C-alpha cells in the first residue's frame, strides 16, 4: 500500500515527461514512517539510455537495508520513446524527526544529474500496523470485500461475481496507461483527474443511469433497458442488487468483454460511461410496471491536495513547475519551499439508479383470433414432416419452426388437431435466441412425435399460428400445410390394436332399458330347486315300483293258478269220486277228464280256448315232462273219452281210472313244481 502514493505520483509525472532529457526523481514510499519501519524509496531515471552509474551520497540518518532492485520500462507515446529505469532501495531511519532522503546521482554522457532531496517525517514506533490494516481493507486488492456476503449457492452471487469480474476488467482497462503496466497488481493507479472533486460532489460524478427505449408498450412488446455507470472518478464498484424484473420476461444482451468505456458529455461534463447491463424486457402482465433501482456499492477514490514543506533545490526546474503548474499555479500558498502533493481518500459509496415505471397495455381484444397465444413480434413459421408413408409400428415427427423477433420464449405450443386414432407424445420444445444485437431474435421449434394405431389414410389438418405485430398493431395468422398420411399395418398391429385404449372412458348407455329388481337369492338355497330334482326322481321311482307291482301281479296269477290247479283238480276228483259212489258213469268220466284238462290248463298256462292234445304235448315238452308221464296222461284222457262214448265199463274200471288220474296229478305236480 505504501507504493500507491509513489505510483500515483509517478503516474502523474508520466504525462509531462515526454522530453528526451535525462531526469532523475526521488520518490519515497511514504512521507511519514516509523523509526522501526523499513520503507522504500524509488529513484526513477528517464531516458537514461546512456546512464553509466548511479550512486547515493553518504547518509548518516538512513541505513540501506536492501537494494537497489532494478526495473526497466520502455514507453512509446506519440512516436516518442521513453526509457524508464527504476531503482528501488529499502531504507530504515536511524533517528526521529525530519529526515532528508538525499537525491541519487546519475552519470550520463559524462554529465552528473542529481535527483531531488525529499524530507520525510520519522516518528517513534511504527506506522506499519496501521498501514497493514489499510492494506487488508484495500478495495483494489484481489480479495473482494463483498465476497463473503454472498454464498456460492446464491444465484445472485454468481451475477455478482460476474459483475465484479467485469469491474476488474474495467479497472485493468483503465490501467492500460503505459506507466501502470510495470506496477505490481496491488499498485493500481488511477486515471488522472482533471479537477479535484470534493467528497460531497461524488454523487454528481459517479452514478448509475437507466435508459429505457420505450415507456409505453403493448403486452409482450420488447423494451430495451440499459444500465450505465457514469463516472469521472477512479472507482471500484460492484453491483449489489440487480433490479428485480417482476412482470417481465427478460433476456440479457451480450456486452463486449471487457467493457469498453465510452466518453459521453452529460450535463456539460465529460464522463466515462460503462454499460453494465443491457436487457430486453418483454412484459408478461398489463398495468404500470416498475423497474426497481439497480444498486451498487464500492469505493470511489478522491484526491486531496496536501501541502508538504519541502526543500526544493530544483525550485525552478522546468519539470517541477510543469508537473504541478497545471493544477497548482493559481494556488496562492504555492511557493518554492512548499510542495503540494496529493493524498487520496477512498470513500465508500452506494449508488442507486432511479426506478423507472413502464405502462403496459393489453393486446386489443377486438379481432383477436381464437388461436392467439401471446406471441408478439414478427414471425414466420415453417413446418415439416419426416414421413407420410409409414406403418403402425413407426413413429413420425412433425416439426414447426417459428422464426423471428419478439417474445419467442412466451410463444405457446401450437396445438395440432391429430385424428383420434393417432397416438401423440408431448411435443418437444426448444428455442435458440440470439441476443447480440439490439433485437431479441431467434427461433423456437416444436417437435410433435406421433404413431398411428390403425392402418389407413389420415389427414393431419393445418395448424394456425397467430401473433400480434406491435408495429402495425394488428394480428397476423400463419397457417401450416396439412399432411396426408398413408399408414400400412405393421408387425405389431394386432397387439397394438388390443392394447389400444380410448383416451377417455366410453359414454354411458342412455338407451331405455328395462331394469328390474333381481333377487339376490341363490337357487340351491331354495327348497323348490331341490324339489326339481326330487319330484322327477320320485316319479321315476314310483313308475318303477308300479311296474314291478304290475309284473308281480301278472306273475302271481300264474303262480296262483298253478298253486290252485292241484286243489281244483283234487276237488274235481272228489266230485268224481262222489259220482263213482253213485255209479253215475258218464258224469264220473266227464268230471275226471275235466279235472285233468283244467289242471293242465292251469299248470301249463294254456288258455282253455286253445287247449288241445297237441298244445298240451308241446307245452309239456317245453316243461320237459317225461314221455312216460305224457303217455300216461294221454292214456287216461283217452280212456275217459272212450268211456264217455262207450259207457258201461263197470265199476272196477271207474275205480282204476280214478286212482290213475289221482296218481297222474300227483306225479305232474311233482314234475312241474
Amino acid at each position, binding site marked *: 500500500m505504501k507504493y500507491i502514493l509513489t505510483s500515483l505520483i509517478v503516474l502523474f509525472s508520466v504525462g509531462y515527461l515526454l522530453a528526451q532529457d535525462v531526469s532523475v526523481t526521488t520518490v519515497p514510499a511514504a512521507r511519514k514512517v516509523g523509526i522501526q519501519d523499513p520503507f522504500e524509496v524509488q529513484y526513477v531515471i528517464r531516458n537514461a539510455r546512456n546512464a553509466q552509474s548511479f550512486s547515493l551520497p553518504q547518509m548518516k540518518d538512513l541505513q540501506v537495508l536492501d537494494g537497489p532492485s532494478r526495473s526497466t520500462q520502455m514507453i512509446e507515446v506519440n512516436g516518442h520513446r521513453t526509457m524508464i529505469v527504476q531503482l528501488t532501495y529499502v531504507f530504515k531511519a536511524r533517528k526521529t524527526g525530519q529526515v532528508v532522503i538525499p537525491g541519487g546521482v546519475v552519470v550520463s554522457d559524462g554529465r552528473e544529474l542529481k535527483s531531488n532531496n525529499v524530507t520525510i517525517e520519522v516518528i517513534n514506533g511504527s506506522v506499519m500496523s496501521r498501514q497493514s490494516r489499510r492494506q487488508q481493507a484495500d478495495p483494489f486488492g484481489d480479495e473482494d470485500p463483498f465476497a463473503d456476503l454472498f454464498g456460492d449457492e446464491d444465484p445472485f452471487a454468481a451475477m455478482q461475481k460476474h459483475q465484479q469480474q467485469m469491474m476488474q476488467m474495467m479497472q485493468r482497462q483503465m490501467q492500460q496507461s503505459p506507466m501502470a503496466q510495470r506496477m505490481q497488481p496491488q499498485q493500481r493507479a488511477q486515471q488522472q483527474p482533471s479537477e479535484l472533486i470534493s467528497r460531497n460532489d461524488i454523487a454528481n460524478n459517479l452514478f448509475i443511469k437507466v435508459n429505457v427505449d420505450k415507456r409505453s408498450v403493448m403486452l409482450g412488446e420488447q423494451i430495451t433497458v440499459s444500465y450505465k455507470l457514469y463516472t469521472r472518478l477512479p472507482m471500484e464498484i460492484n453491483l449489489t442488487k440487480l433490479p428485480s424484473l417482476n412482470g417481465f420476461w427478460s433476456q440479457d444482451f451480450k456486452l463486449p468483454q471487457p467493457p469498453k468505456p465510452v466518453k459521453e458529455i452529460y450535463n456539460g461534463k465529460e464522463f466515462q460511461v460503462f454499460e453494465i447491463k443491457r436487457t430486453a424486457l418483454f412484459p408478461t402482465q398489463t398495468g404500470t410496471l416498475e423497474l426497481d433501482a439497480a444498486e451498487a456499492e464500492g469505493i470511489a477514490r478522491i484526491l486531496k491536495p496536501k501541502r508538504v514543506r519541502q526543500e526544493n533545490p530544483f525550485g525552478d526546474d522546468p519539470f517541477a513547475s510543469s508537473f504541478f503548474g497545471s493544477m497548482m499555479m493559481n494556488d496562492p500558498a504555492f511557493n518554492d519551499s512548499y510542495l503540494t502533493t496529493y493524498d487520496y481518500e477512498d470513500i465508500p459509496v452506494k449508488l442507486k439508479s432511479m426506478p423507472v415505471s413502464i405502462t403496459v397495455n393489453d393486446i386489443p381484444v377486438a379481432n383477436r383470433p381464437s388461436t392467439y397465444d401471446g406471441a408478439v413480434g414478427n414471425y414466420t413459421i415453417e413446418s415439416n414432416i419426416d414421413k407420410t408413408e409409414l406403418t403402425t409400428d413407426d413413429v413420425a415427427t412433425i416439426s414447426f419452426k417459428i422464426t423471428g423477433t419478439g417474445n419467442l420464449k412466451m410463444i405457446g405450443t401450437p396445438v395440432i388437431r391429430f385424428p383420434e386414432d393417432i397416438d401423440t407424445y408431448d411435443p418437444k420444445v426448444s428455442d435458440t435466441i440470439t441476443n447480440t444485437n439490439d433485437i431479441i431474435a431467434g427461433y423456437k421449434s416444436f417437435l410433435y412425435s406421433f404413431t398411428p394405431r390403425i392402418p389407413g389414410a389420415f389427414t393431419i389438418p393445418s395448424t394456425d399460428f397467430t401473433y400480434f405485430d406491435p408495429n402495425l398493431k394488428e394480428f397476423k395468422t400463419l397457417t401450416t400445410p396439412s399432411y396426408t398420411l398413408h399408414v400400412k399395418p405393421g408387425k405389431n398391429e394386432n397387439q397394438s390394436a388390443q392394447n389400444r*385404449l*380410448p383416451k*377417455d*372412458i*366410453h*359414454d*354411458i*348407455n*342412455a*338407451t*331405455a*332399458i*328395462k*331394469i*328390474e*329388481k*333381481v*333377487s*339376490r337369492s*341363490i*337357487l*340351491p338355497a331354495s327348497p323348490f*330347486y331341490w324339489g*326339481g*330334482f326330487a319330484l*322327477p*326322481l320320485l*316319479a*321315476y321311482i314310483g*313308475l*318303477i315300483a308300479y*311296474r314291478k307291482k304290475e309284473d308281480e301281479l301278472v306273475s302271481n296269477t300264474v303262480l296262483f293258478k298253478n298253486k290252485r290247479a292241484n286243489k281244483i283238480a283234487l276237488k274235481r276228483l272228489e266230485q268224481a269220486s262222489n259220482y263213482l259212489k253213485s255209479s253215475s258213469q258218464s258224469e264220473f268220466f266227464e268230471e275226471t277228464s275235466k279235472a285233468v284238462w283244467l289242471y293242465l290248463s292251469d299248470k301249463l298256462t294254456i288258455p282253455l280256448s286253445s287247449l288241445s292234445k297237441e298244445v298240451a304235448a308241446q307245452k309239456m315238452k317245453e316243461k320237459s315232462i317225461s314221455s312216460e308221464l305224457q303217455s300216461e296222461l294221454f292214456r287216461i284222457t283217452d280212456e275217459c273219452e272212450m268211456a264217455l262214448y262207450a259207457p258201461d265199463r263197470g265199476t272196477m274200471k271207474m275205480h282204476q281210472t280214478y286212482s290213475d288220474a289221482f296218481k297222474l296229478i300227483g306225479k305232474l305236480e311233482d314234475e312241474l313244481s
Partner: protein
Amino acid sequence: MSRIKIISILIFLFGTLIAKSEGNIMFEKANQLYHNKLYDSASNLYQQMINDGYAHAELFYNAGNAYYRTNQIGRAIWCYRKSQLLNDSKYVQDNLALANKRIKQPILSSSPIFFIRWWRAIYSLFSINGWAIFSLSCFFIALGMLFLKKIKSSIGISSLITNTFLGMTLIGLFFMSVRMYQHQYQYRGILIGEGISFTSNTKSESIELNEGIEVIYKGKQKQGILIELPDGRKGVINPSYMLKLD
C-alpha cells in the same frame, strides 16, 4: 271368491308395473344428470338403484362411469366388474382398463399355474345359479330318457347317453357347490377408500393399499378380515374397506 282372486291378481300386476317403471325413471334421471355433468348426483342415484336391488349390466356400467368421473376409482372398478360379471362388453373392458390405470399403486397379479387357471376358468363358466340350472337340466334330460325307456322299451336310447347326462348333473352340482363355497367363504371384493392399512400375515409390518385393487376374502380374523392380494400376499384389513363383488 273368484272376484277377490281376480282383483288381487290385478293389484299384483299393477304393482309390478309401477315398480318396473320406477326403476326406469330413476335410471333415465341419473343418465340425464350424468350428461349434465352432475356426476355426483348421478352416482348417488345409480347407487340408490343398486342398493334397492336393481341389477343390470348397463346400470352398473353407467354407475361405474359416474364414479370414474367423480374420481372414486375403487367404486368405479367395482361397478365395471359387476357389469362385466353380468354381461361383458368391449366398452366395459375399455373403461375398466382405464380405471385400473388410475389405481395409484396397482398390484400386478402373479399368474397362477395353468391347472389352477383352467380350474378357475371351468368353475367360473357359470354362476351358482347357472350351475344349478345346468345340473337340473341335465337331470331332467337323463330322467326323461329313463322314463321313455320304461314306458316304451322299444325306443332305443343307449344307456351311455343317459349316464352321461346323469354324470353331467353330478358335475354341475359339484361346481355349484364349489362356487357356493367361494361365495360364502372365499369371495372376491374391491378395496374402497383411502389409506387402507394392510397388515401382512408373514411379515408383521403394515403397508398402505390404494383403492381399486381386487382381492379375495379368505376368512375372518380377530383384527379384521383376511384377504389375499393379486400377487398372492395375504394379510388383514378392516372389513369396511372391502366391497364384495360376487
